[in-house]
């Protein structure tokens, strides 16, 4: 089972994702903005990150870039309400492995996580 860092400014969304992922047997760590995410990534080196985009302090795209700059092999799945094509392309070009648009079904998250973890 994997160690997963959930990044979202909404405690509600972290709770939903934590529920889905812990039911799959994963260990979960939480961060509430991009800055917090970069620090928690360094401290915990998780196997996978789910990354929101619209957040205070530092947004998810910046956090993704900061994490990838220090850890080229970091596995990050974006999980955002902003589904514009340009946003998706920027995230993937910046090294995200997948892009889940909120609102999502639990199955979509489970599938994306297991696919990225096994790659």
């Amino acid at each position: 089972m994997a160690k997963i860092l959930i990044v979202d400014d909404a405690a509600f969304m972290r709770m939903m994702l934590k529920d889905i992922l812990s039911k799959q047997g994963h260990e979960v760590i939480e961060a509430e903005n991009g800055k917090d995410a970069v620090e928690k990534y360094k401290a915990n080196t998780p196997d996978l990150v789910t990354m929101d985009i619209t957040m205070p302090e530092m947004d998810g795209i910046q956090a993704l870039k900061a994490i990838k700059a220090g850890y080229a092999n970091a596995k990050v799945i974006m999980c955002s309400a902003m589904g514009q094509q340009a946003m998706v392309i920027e995230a993937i070009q910046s090294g995200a492995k997948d892009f889940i648009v909120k609102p999502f079904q639990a199955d979509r998250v489970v599938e994306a996580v297991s696919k990225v973890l096994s790659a």
Partner: protein
Amino acid sequence: MEFDVNVINPFLASAKRTTAMVAQIDLSIGKPYIRELKFDNEFVRIILGVTGAMTGQVIISMPEGKARDIASRMMMGMPVETLDDMAISAISELGNMIMGTAATILSENGVIIDITPPVVELGTVYMNMKSFQNVCVPLLLDNEVYMELNIIVKVKTDTE
């Protein structure tokens, strides 16, 4: 009353789609009207900023009981008797998802906007935004107002 349906419709479509998905409710769209930016304390407001090709704010206002109802539905029926931190977080995220989906719909027509993180506000307030017009659209469930979308945006022209 004058407003551009191309500006208003993506927000309505998004609110309908998002609430159906996260709360399994089918809201119907009421008649738009120009509304003063005055809210009393029976309404919870989720305030979201809009930047980019449109500027301004969208304020989602909900009667307190309806805000508790949707928070409960979003948390798989968990009872919500008071708007505690988790319930407020749920409705904030509802606002974020409505705006994100609207941004996605707008982008399909070449209109690129960004949104700010939501802020939830309670209590009485009067907002002075004289240069902006508020187009308010009620969304109804069983003929009762479930939420209102206050769309207070300006479309940027090429010369700006």
